């Protein structure tokens, strides 16, 4: 299977501080990469670069065959991004937010409505979909954000702690939409490795020893075979 993500010497600096340094990675299509690491290790930065929301400072980045940032336009619309913010407008209802996203992604009319209905039903939000987002709990917003993330049926899912704020029922529902499935490539950032590791094909462990010194940023890539041997 062709590579969905290829990173060669990826670096990202914020002023004098290195968030990512010399990161190497290959992830085949259909695989799941679990990214682990402490706060400030660069996990979210990595996801935002893969989502075309941040430019790398140096190195080569290929996502779904497109070289970033130059060919970012080829990737947009093929990626589903679930970050810390739900990316929902508070003054619109959940359904209106999803309709807005559907239109941005070129889904129209009955197709969009049908897809929105199926997703809301699957995530257990059908009854609350017409309430303003500002009135919803954090868990309900996260459920809507998951619907937004997969609304356009992306080839690559970039998930930053997707189960945060979700109850047990919500986690099960979310797993149906963003969990491992045939042909679905995922990059999953988590602080709960015990839940994510069983699905991992590769594990990327980002570490931060001293934030100010680039040389001390460490990344270690553990492929599935090594992980299984270690377990």
């Amino acid at each position: 299977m062709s590579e969905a993500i290829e990173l060669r010497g990826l670096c990202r600096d914020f002023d004098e501080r290195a968030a990512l340094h010399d990161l190497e990675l290959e992830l085949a299509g259909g695989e799941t990469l679990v990214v682990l690491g402490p706060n400030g290790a660069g996990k979210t930065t990595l996801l935002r670069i893969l989502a075309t929301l941040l430019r790398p400072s140096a190195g080569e980045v290929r996502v779904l065959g497109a070289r970033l940032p130059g060919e970012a336009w080829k990737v947009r619309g093929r990626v589903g991004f679930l970050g810390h913010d739900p990316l929902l407008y508070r003054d619109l209802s959940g359904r209106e937010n999803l309709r807005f996203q559907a239109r941005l992604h070129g889904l129209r009319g009955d197709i969009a409505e049908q897809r929105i209905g199926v997703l809301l039903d699957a995530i257990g939000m059908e009854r609350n979909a017409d309430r303003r987002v500002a009135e919803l709990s954090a868990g309900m917003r996260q459920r809507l954000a998951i619907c937004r993330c997969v609304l356009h049926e992306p080839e690559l899912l970039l998930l930053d702690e997707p189960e945060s704020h979700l109850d047990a029922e919500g986690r099960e529902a979310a797993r149906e939409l963003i969990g491992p499935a045939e042909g679905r490539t995922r990059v999953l950032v988590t602080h709960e490795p015990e839940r994510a590791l069983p699905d991992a094909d590769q594990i990327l462990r980002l570490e931060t020893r001293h934030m100010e010194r680039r040389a001390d940023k460490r990344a270690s890539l553990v492929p599935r075979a090594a992980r299984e041997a270690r377990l």
Partner: protein
Amino acid sequence: MTPSRLAFAAILGKDLRAELRTLQSLPAMALFAVTTFVIFRFGLDRTSLSGSLGAGVLWATLLFAAILGINRLFVAEREEGGFDAIRLAPIDRTALFAAKAAALLAYLLVLEAIVVPVFAIFFLGSAAALPPVAAVVLLADLGLAATGTLISSMAVNSRARDLLVPLVLLPLAVPLSIAATGALEPLLAVGGPGYHRFGTWLAVLGLYDLVFLLAGYAVFDFLLED
């Protein structure tokens, strides 16, 4: 790629729906403008204004009221993640510029539909000047919407947003203000509207609109980069 007209319609529709629901910008803009007219009426102790004084009072009030709306134009995009959501979509980002400028233009038109008649009641003897005045402010609104959208998108990431917008916008709006008041002055002359050099000022307004609409189209994509 999603066609730009669809993205434009989606963003504009979202903005207008949110404003209709929350009324965060328009009531404040209209209230500010009407209050300013009241202050001018009693501050100047005049029941009628004409010529350059009338043009100055009308335009300055509209411009400062517009700043209230410009300040808030991208707040939802900044605070609720709209920028990221739009940047993730397969759309031409200039659709966002066009939609935001159109939303601001709509706010300005509604504002003027309310406050220009109020200005006429406070300061003009008749309504004869209102149709050509409406044409002038419409042309000026296009330029103000283009400039305001550009400045707002740059300032929204700053914590000093409320300060930055007027500081950057007002100098850029000087040519627009000169042309707008130049066109309005003969329309508000004592004895009824005149049209001395009216066409020249309209041409200047049109040129300003064109320059800033093109500038917005050219640079907006870069403004959205990280």
